[in-house]
């Protein structure tokens, strides 16, 4: 392929590399083609049909995520034909399940029978837990469609709540397959896949057992990629809408991989944790500890005051008193028994800055090199 390989998108020419899809070229050039099923790093499936575009000379619309760019293609991403197709696709998706955001018929100002039924099924007085953080809802607004156009599906599978971390709400699943790709192609835990056929299609574990009895190790990658409310953190479900949350980027505190995480904070509490998707080393992936093991932060067992032991019992003390006592005793032991009678154990859990200060204190103030940490243990 020559260096001058190019395609035209919405009237503008763009070069491309061999192997790039139409969606790749568009994303690279900041052209917004919506998609519900595309997952970076995984094989394109073309499952959702939202990313269709019009290619001049082609008989029908093509899925941009699964169509390789080839020289001189002329593409329209928002032509009337494309928009009509997306509207129909979205209407079908919205009517396929319990998508009870205001999108679905709220002209009268009252909640519809449908919305009330969904709330009863969900045991909540709120609208869908993904309200405000849902790709399907975003697109319904963008293309001004509702689920009223088609009759809703009956016989939706019941919600799975029996594991401690993940709620699987099949009534809101749009079968985009991102969770399947995340589990099989990103984390390679191979716990879930498409099951059954036709209208009965459902995302299942081997034998359609609950996650807790499957190969699932609760990394939660499926929740992170789910575009709707089919997979939600059990703990954070209905806890907070995205605009209530402050997101703080930091580094996970568990193993040495150093995954980049976002702490989602509301009212000085960490509500949930997600992976940072655009940064090394983890590109959004986390494990069960990193994603769900944050409750120690707000544990009532946290120490909140300096403690001094007297007659075998601890009593609370001021910083002034506790630090004064330790400084006095360390000084006495250093000066009477020698610097090497004192040892310091620092930690693989605290920061570089804190380790630095601990060793500076040991060497410059205590005047000993008796400092170590638990790397050996």
């Amino acid at each position, binding site marked *: 392929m020559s260096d001058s390989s190019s395609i035209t998108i919405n009237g503008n020419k763009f070069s491309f590399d061999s192997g790039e899809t139409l969606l790749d070229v568009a994303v690279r050039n900041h052209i917004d083609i919506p998609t519900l099923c595309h997952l970076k790093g995984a094989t394109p499936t073309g499952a959702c049909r939202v990313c269709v575009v019009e290619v001049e000379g082609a008989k029908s619309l093509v899925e941009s995520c699964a169509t390789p760019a080839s020289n001189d293609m002329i593409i329209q991403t928002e032509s009337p034909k494309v928009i009509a197709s997306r509207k129909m696709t979205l209407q079908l998706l919205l009517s396929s399940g319990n998508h009870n955001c205001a999108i679905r018929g709220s002209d009268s100002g009252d909640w519809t029978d449908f919305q009330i039924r969904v709330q009863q099924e969900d045991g909540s007085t709120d609208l869908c837990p993904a309200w405000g953080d849902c790709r399907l809802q975003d697109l319904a607004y963008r293309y001004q469609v509702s689920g009223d156009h088609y009759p809703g599906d009956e016989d939706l599978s019941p919600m799975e709540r029996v594991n401690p971390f993940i709620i699987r709400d099949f009534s809101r699943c749009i079968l985009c397959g991102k969770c399947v790709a995340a589990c099989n192609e990103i984390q390679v835990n191979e716990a879930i896949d498409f099951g059954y056929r036709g209208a009965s299609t459902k995302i299942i574990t081997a034998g359609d057992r609950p996650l807790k009895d499957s190969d699932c190790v609760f990394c939660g990658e499926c929740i992170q990629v789910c575009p709707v409310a089919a997979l939600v953190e059990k703990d954070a479900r209905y806890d907070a809408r995205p605009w209530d949350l402050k997101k703080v980027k930091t580094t996970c505190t568990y193993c040495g991989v150093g995954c980049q995480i976002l702490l989602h904070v509301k009212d000085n509490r960490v509500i949930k944790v997600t992976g940072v998707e655009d940064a090394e080393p983890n590109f959004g992936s986390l*494990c069960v500890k990193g994603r769900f093991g944050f409750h120690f932060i707000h544990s009532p067992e946290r120490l909140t005051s300096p403690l001094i032991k007297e007659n075998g019992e601890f009593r609370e003390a001021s910083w002034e008193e506790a630090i004064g006592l330790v400084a006095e005793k360390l000084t006495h032991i250093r000066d009477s028994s020698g610097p090497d009678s004192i040892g310091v154990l620092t930690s693989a859990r605290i920061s570089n800055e804190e380790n630095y200060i*601990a060793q500076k204190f040991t060497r*410059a103030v205590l005047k000993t090199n008796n400092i*170590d940490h638990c790397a050996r243990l």
Partner: protein
Amino acid sequence: MAGLAAAFGSGAMTNTIGDIAEADVFLATGTNTTENHPVLSSFVKRAVKFNNAKLIVVDPRRIKLTEHAEMFLRPNLGTDVAWINSLMHVIIKEDLYDKKFVDTRTNGFEELKKIVEKFTPDFVESITGILSEDIIAAAKMYAGAEKGCILYCMGITQHTTGTDNVKSLANLAMLCGNLGIRGGGVNPLRGQNNVQGACDMSGLPNVFTGYQPVTNKDFLKKHEEKWGVTGMSDQPGLTVTAMVPKAHDGEIKAIYIIGENPLVSDPDLNHAEECLSRLDLLVVQDIFLTETAKMADVVFPSVCFAEKDGTFSNTERRVQRIRKAVEPPGEAKDDWWITCEIAKRMGYDMTYENAEEIFKEISELTPSYGGINYPRIEHEGIHWPCPDENHPGTPILHIGQFPIGKGNFHAIDYIPPAEKTDDEYPLYLTTGRVIYHYHTGTMTRKTAGLNERSPESFVEISSDDAAAYNLEDGTIVNIASRRGRIKARVAVSEKAVNGTVFIPFHFAEAAANKLTNAALDPVSSIPEYKVCAVKVES
């Protein structure tokens, strides 16, 4: 890390996590990667599933990773030097080694060749229990790699021969020219978020930051001048495994412990507890009243990672930011603030406005961190060594040459583990972690969901051994070693090999380390957590 430092001049993961994707053969040994480093394990699994990379797992336990492996070798506990030497025996004998690399970049090949000569696959089968044909096949597979990646963890280091084991892996990688290339390397996976940083920041008795020896007069002088003090010690201090026993003899009178829980993590816990009880002063600084903190004379409440700014250095030497997201509970304070306040009361002024100001001082004193600052790592971290602000960092170590010039082969003979089974203690015990918990469990056991998945300790045992010792799956049994006893629930599992049981060490109420042996590796002072003799009784 002493093993790698002796071989290459630098004791850290040679390659990066992202790099793993490019390997065509993996040798993973002593690492239960899917449970202890789950996200990193995905890189390995993806390479196997989508890039046709081949995975060799060498581990006594049938860990989850073996499901992705082309070859699974199951050595007897503590026989690592023997099988690694045998791989090299085959590779040299069949002329499969990288002669150019060996000639131009290494010292000591003749001595290595001589020592591995006796480690024939047949001889090693008798030591390790690995079939000789499997040894030959694994040797050919690793030697045939264009980019061979070695991954290891505590299953290699927590032995009396841990340093020897690591040197042996370094030998193997050098022999096949797998250093200084993408997708290759010798990669120790760090189990705790900032082990690398704690070492880099000289939470070690023999070096200043960036591994500058305390015995070197120039380094000592540089630090005294920067810190404005005189009379610092030029003698290496005590390791944790020496410090705690010396408390027993009264040589150590005070210990200041920051964020550690040695009363669950130390070997031979009963003895460790006795040692600490004899101190004149025990100060513990932590976020919880841990088993160790309960013994303290003074406890300081500190803040956790979500409540502070700073940096961690991950297993691939990448220095990354942590950021304050929430306010700490009560009067809890930053660890550095607490230590600085003690210093001030002892007459030495240590005042910093924030963590960034401390980091600047670190950069000034530490050549490998010299070019790293907070603005540069705002979005993504940088791999040290990074000597100046225009340097991009060093994702792959040892390209072209080692920091010590040529790499050193070490001729290493096999030494059996320190403790043997006998009639009274007929089973071997090995310890480790499960995916749902972390280290001594002080953090993960505060999440109800993690406890639901993994509520209590267990003793994993093969069905044959369970039958032989009359142990019923799911019942509580006693496990005893020459040092202590605990209770745990029997878990009959295909993961276990006959003759060896496994117990996780997260659970203080059934602390596996009451059983373990405090025998140490003579170089690294790492205890032999991975092998001791026990009996299991219903």
